[in-house]
């Protein structure tokens, strides 16, 4: 749970890309360092070979092959740190002097540089490996001179450098990752704190604010801004709610007056045709009044004030009472009314609202199920909640409309006209379930609809006080 949260967090993804870019940058810097060092090494090698070749040609021009032998004796002695090999040959590359036996079979590079492999060398008991670099030149008199240098030591040095650089790259990345992870963890904790607070606010407790004490800098500013935004939203929400409540409230009174006057008219009416019309008008007015009181009720429930009246409610009795109230209605429509009630404990809540919610669901189920259909009401226990479901074999709700049915005044297109209702029943159920910290979902009953309501075993609202 917490791991998956870390992996999906922005911070983690930021960290991953940060490590990737860090690796690239470190690699580039270290590669550059390596290139400089290697270049220095090899230019050193070249310079030394060039100097030896100049010294050799000078020695040959001054003293001939004896001088060369003497020169070789001095320059390739075992006391020397770098081992050079010399060859002086005539124009046909036959040996005149030096410690190489023959002109090596070499690859020619530019500017007289050659490279060759050499298994074992004359005058030397032990083979010294086969990495050589050599420089040759031709004197004006036709003799060809060659100086070769064994450069395994240089290779070893560059290898050492490369190894050191690789290790420091690994160390940099590991340290960078650890540092990044710690930073990410710290900021994740603060974001988590903000998130949990926002979650509480979204679940209805709008008075909640993010705690800014203890945080500084960016997070404090962020939290303060979020808090200010919440203040603003709260003001706006209260405004909107007040306006809609006032409309419903203010219209309810004149509407009642209208209804009462119609009722007076009804009593005074002697003509039966007129009476019937007045009755229809009264019914219409009652429908409007019902819609307004349903709206006000939803607003009241959504405001969360009803929590103050929460008490222990025996869910099993409550559902049985709903069933008892509605069963005759189903029987009148020749519907099979099945119940499956498990014995469950109590929930903390408002019994009248819970009754209203379950009653609305059962009412809908009966209303939308054709004659001879089946309505099922069940109550079962789940690990941390009680599950109340109402299933029918009616027309059901298309997938696309599943979310919308909880909106005020929303009615499934096919049910408009042929079924009475104001489109507020499920909105009220939704509001009641949310008030009780529960969840509600619609499922396909194949055919029909199954509404599942889950109520927490111990409502957290009671813990909050």
């Amino acid at each position: 749970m917490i791991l998956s949260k870390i992996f999906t967090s922005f911070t983690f993804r930021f960290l991953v890309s940060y490590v990737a870019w860090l690796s690239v940058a470190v690699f580039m810097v270290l590669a550059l360092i390596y290139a400089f060092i290697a270049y220095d090494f090899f230019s050193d090698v070249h310079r030394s070979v060039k100097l030896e070749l100049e010294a050799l040609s000078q020695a040959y021009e001054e003293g001939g092959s004896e001088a060369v032998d003497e020169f070789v004796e001095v320059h390739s002695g075992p006391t020397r740190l770098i081992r050079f090999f010399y060859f002086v040959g005539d124009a046909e590359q036959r040996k005149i002097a030096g410690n190489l036996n023959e002109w090596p079979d070499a690859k020619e590079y530019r500017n007289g540089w050659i490279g060759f492999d050499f298994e074992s060398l004359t005058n030397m008991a032990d083979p010294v490996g086969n990495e050589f670099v050599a420089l040759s030149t031709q004197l004006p008199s036709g003799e060809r001179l060659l100086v070769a240098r064994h450069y395994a030591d240089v290779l070893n040095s560059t290898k050492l450098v490369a190894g050191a650089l690789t290790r420091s790259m690994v160390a940099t990345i590991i340290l960078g990752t650890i540092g990044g992870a710690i930073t990410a963890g710290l900021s994740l904790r603060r974001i988590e704190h903000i998130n949990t607070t926002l979650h509480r606010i979204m679940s209805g407790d709008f008075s909640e604010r993010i705690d800014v004490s203890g945080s500084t800098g960016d997070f404090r500013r962020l939290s303060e801004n979020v808090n200010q935004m919440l203040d603003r939203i709260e003001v706006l929400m209260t405004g909107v709610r007040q306006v809609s409540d006032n409309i419903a409230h203010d219209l309810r009174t004149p509407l009642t007056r209208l209804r009462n006057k119609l009722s007076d008219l009804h009593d005074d009416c002697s003509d039966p045709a007129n009476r019937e019309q007045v009755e229809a008008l009264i019914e219409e007015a009652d429908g409007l009044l019902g819609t307004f009181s349903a709206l006000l009720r939803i607003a009241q429930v959504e405001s969360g004030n009803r929590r103050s009246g929460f008490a222990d409610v025996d869910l099993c009795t409550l559902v049985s009472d709903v069933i008892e109230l509605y069963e005759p209605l189903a029987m009148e429509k020749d519907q099979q009314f099945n119940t499956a009630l498990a014995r469950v404990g109590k929930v903390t809540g408002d019994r009248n609202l819970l009754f209203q919610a379950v009653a609305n669901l059962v009412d809908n189920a009966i209303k939308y199920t054709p004659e001879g259909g089946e309505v099922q009401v069940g109550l079962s226990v789940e690990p941390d909640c009680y599950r109340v479901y109402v299933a029918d074999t009616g027309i059901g709700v298309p997938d696309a409309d599943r979310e919308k049915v909880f909106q005020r005044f929303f009615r499934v297109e096919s049910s408009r006209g042929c079924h009475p209702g104001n489109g507020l029943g499920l909105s009220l159920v939704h509001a009641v379930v949310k008030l009780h910290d529960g969840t509600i979902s619609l499922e396909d009953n194949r055919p029909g609809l199954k509404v599942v309501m889950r109520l927490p075993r111990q409502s957290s609202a009671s813990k909050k006080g």
Partner: protein
Amino acid sequence: MRILLIEDDLSVAEYIVKGLRESGYQVEHVADGKSGLVKATTEEYDALIVDRMLPNVDGLTIIQTLRAANDATPALILSALGEVDDRVKGLKAGGDDYLVKPFAFAELLARIEVILRRHESSSAVTRLKVADLEMDLLAHKVTRGGETFNLQPREYKLLEYLMRHAGQVVTRTMLLENVWDYHFDPQTNVIDVHISRLRQKIDKGFDRQLLNTVRGAGYMLDDSE
């Protein structure tokens, strides 16, 4: 029957006064809490209709004061605050019933009649009788013309409530509150089905229909015909 109405909203007051007078009650109206309290304590009334929110002294205080002085005049509270909490508070303060504004006059009238009657006959009864329909409260037995009915517990409760208020209009909300003990708005007239089932049992096969529907108001169990 003298009724005192304490209500500061003049249009509502006028409407109630007119309606109650037409129904044969004597009504006095005062518009503020203080003079209402004075009138209620100094004069005799059969019932009080008290708005909850009043200038000077609020409705609940008036009723609490009366009850503290051992005055048991039945009182109906009117209020724009319709939630269960408010209702409970109102009834705890000593109100006999609670009606949320706005209301249909039929509902007010039905409730007034019920609290008046309740006050009249608070003595324990063991038998209820409406025409030839009889209910033995001790034996839980219902008979009509010698025939015994087999009623479900809820049907029994429903009939008992109707019989206790025989001759009075009983609204659907009153039945839900008193027989089912839930305060909620049914989306359909589910009560009608229960009434018609009860009617099937007690009225079927008899010449006189006792259980009648009062259009626009509710039901009435009635032997006057």
